[in-house]
């Protein structure tokens, strides 16, 4: 092997392209060493460590879950008899013991999702619009809005249970100073508990959505706004005809991740309301985790998780359908011309 070529290799990562004169020998050498293309095994060797994890803790459990859901699978009992679709049938039979708790928890998840998603789509957009123009201190404010999100659900839930304490909490104290009722039991009565759970979640994740919106807003070409202004479009028309169509891809992304995040709500309810009063704020995830991992009714809990998943996938598909590309092209063209 020509050592001269061999030396000119990597460490600096600044290797030059070979000159035309020794390209021929390069090629031959490459063939001999088998590096012209990689060997068949090479990509799989790169993939192997990840695929080992992915196979063991994502693919295997996704399949194993179906298997579990077809058995009367009590973790603590030696026998786990096959029961076919019984676990699913029970979930849909009003007389069964699991029917009430499961659909009650689905209802709680539904309430939380319906209340939180619109707020988490609209409020962060408003904040992002206010932030879209440069002004001194903008990056600082952006960091402050984002800060609650890095704290994690356990910290923010424990914190807000304190702030919302009905006797000594800061929230009731300030409401009292404003002349409003100062004895609301935020974590132990509904509908106050819903207001608390939704409000805390908006506080916690607003910055996350706002940051994504902001990136999307900055990708909209400024010429589109100028063209719209020339055509006499006011701020509202610009928002409807330039901003919204320009944000469309981001909008569908944010809608899906917000929906999925809200539908997977667990920690806030577990730590702030303990699912109460009664079981009213016990969400589907809470119910599934408790049924499967506290009471070890894993067959039934696995079935619940697939029913919930079917709901979530249907909703995601609906969002994709609503946001699919169609008329906005026409709108953009109008603005441009």
């Amino acid at each position, binding site marked *: 092997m020509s050592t001269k070529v061999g030396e000119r290799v990597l460490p600096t*990562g600044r290797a030059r392209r070979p000159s035309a004169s020794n390209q021929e020998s390069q090629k031959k050498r490459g063939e001999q060493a088998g590096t012209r293309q990689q060997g068949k095994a090479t990509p799989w060797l790169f*993939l192997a460590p990840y695929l080992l994890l992915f196979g063991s803790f994502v693919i295997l459990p996704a399949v194993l879950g179906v298997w579990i859901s077809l058995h009367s699978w009590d973790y603590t009992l030696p026998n786990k008899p096959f029961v076919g679709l019984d676990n699913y049938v029970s979930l849909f039979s009003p007389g069964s013991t699991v029917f009430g708790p499961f659909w009650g928890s689905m209802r709680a998840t539904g309430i939380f999702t319906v209340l939180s998603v619109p707020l988490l789509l609209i409020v962060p957009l408003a904040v992002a619009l206010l932030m879209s123009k440069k002004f001194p201190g903008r990056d600082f404010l952006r960091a402050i809005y984002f800060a*609650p999100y890095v704290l994690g659900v356990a910290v923010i839930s424990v914190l807000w249970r304190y702030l919302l304490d009905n006797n000594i909490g800061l929230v009731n104290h300030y409401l009292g100073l404003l002349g409003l009722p100062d004895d609301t039991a935020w974590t132990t009565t509904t509908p106050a508990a819903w207001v608390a759970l939704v409000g805390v979640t908006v506080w916690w994740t607003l910055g996350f959505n706002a940051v994504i919106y902001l990136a999307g807003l900055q990708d909209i070409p400024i010429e589109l706004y100028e063209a719209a202004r020339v055509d006499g479009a006011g701020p509202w028309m610009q928002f409807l005809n330039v901003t919204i169509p320009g944000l469309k891809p981001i909008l569908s992304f944010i809608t899906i991740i917000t929906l999925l995040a809200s539908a997977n709500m667990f920690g806030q309810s577990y730590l702030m309301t303990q699912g109460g009063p009664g079981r009213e704020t016990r969400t589907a995830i809470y119910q599934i985790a408790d049924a499967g991992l506290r009471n070890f009714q894993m067959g039934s809990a696995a079935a619940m998780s697939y029913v919930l998943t079917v709901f979530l996938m249907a909703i995601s598909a609906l969002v994709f359908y609503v946001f699919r590309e169609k008329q906005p092209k026409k709108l953009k063209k109008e603005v441009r011309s």
Partner: protein
Amino acid sequence: MNAPTTTISAGSRARRARRRSGTITRVVVLGAIAIAFISPIIFMIVTSLKTRADATAIPPSWIPNPISLQAFASILAPGTSTPVLQWFANSMVAAALNATLVVITASLAAYPLARMQFRGKNFVFVIIVATLLVPPVILVIPNYLIVSELGWLNSLVAIIIPTAASAFGVFFMRQFFVGLPIELEEAARLDGANRFVIFMQVVLPLAKPALATLALLAFLGNWNDFLWPVYVLFSPEVQTLPAGLSTLQSANAVRYDLLMAGAVVASVPVLALFIFLQRFIIEGVSRSGVKG
């Protein structure tokens, strides 16, 4: 707006004034929201520095009187049933190892998906990306059984390894690799370097910002993870901070001085990372949105 001042019309002057007052209103509104956003976090810190009596005094005060480290002293004392210092160490170890594992496995897997032609490539990539949309809840129960079978229940390994299978990480690194100029790699290949050497010596040095971002996001995710640790770690001495906070809350329902001190301990590392590496974190999040 760049007309000479002498010819500025009344209309444009008014427009400029309106714009300036618009900016002021905007900053005032945003500033007010920012104060509302940060004050709960400040109050958490304030309360952690109060005495037991002061923490529940009415009306609540924004200044601890006296400033006391009692709450920290009592939760950090060794030999309690709520070993906060141990939880801190557990969280550190788990999050650091998990982030390392994510960065190594995801970048290795992403490279052939970005740069090599091979049979099954699209299939593998589509499967990985598809799992991004699968609600994690369907994995919880079977993973509990798998982890139990492996003998990892009630041990930190259960928090470190299963969650390292990060589909987001592979997707994120692949997008980054695809965007790198290919010339350097081609040149190295013509020089006879094998793929692994190229990956280690040419590609990874260029990918440092992306690797740092992914490591940070993985660290934060693992540090804050709640549901999984709550159910798979049951002895106090193996818990991580979020699961521990839940234990602390059930043990001291209204000892808000202790709870806030615990919450501060759980927040300090992530807030410090955020303050110093804010740009990486925020850009990582917004980039995942734009490209997702």
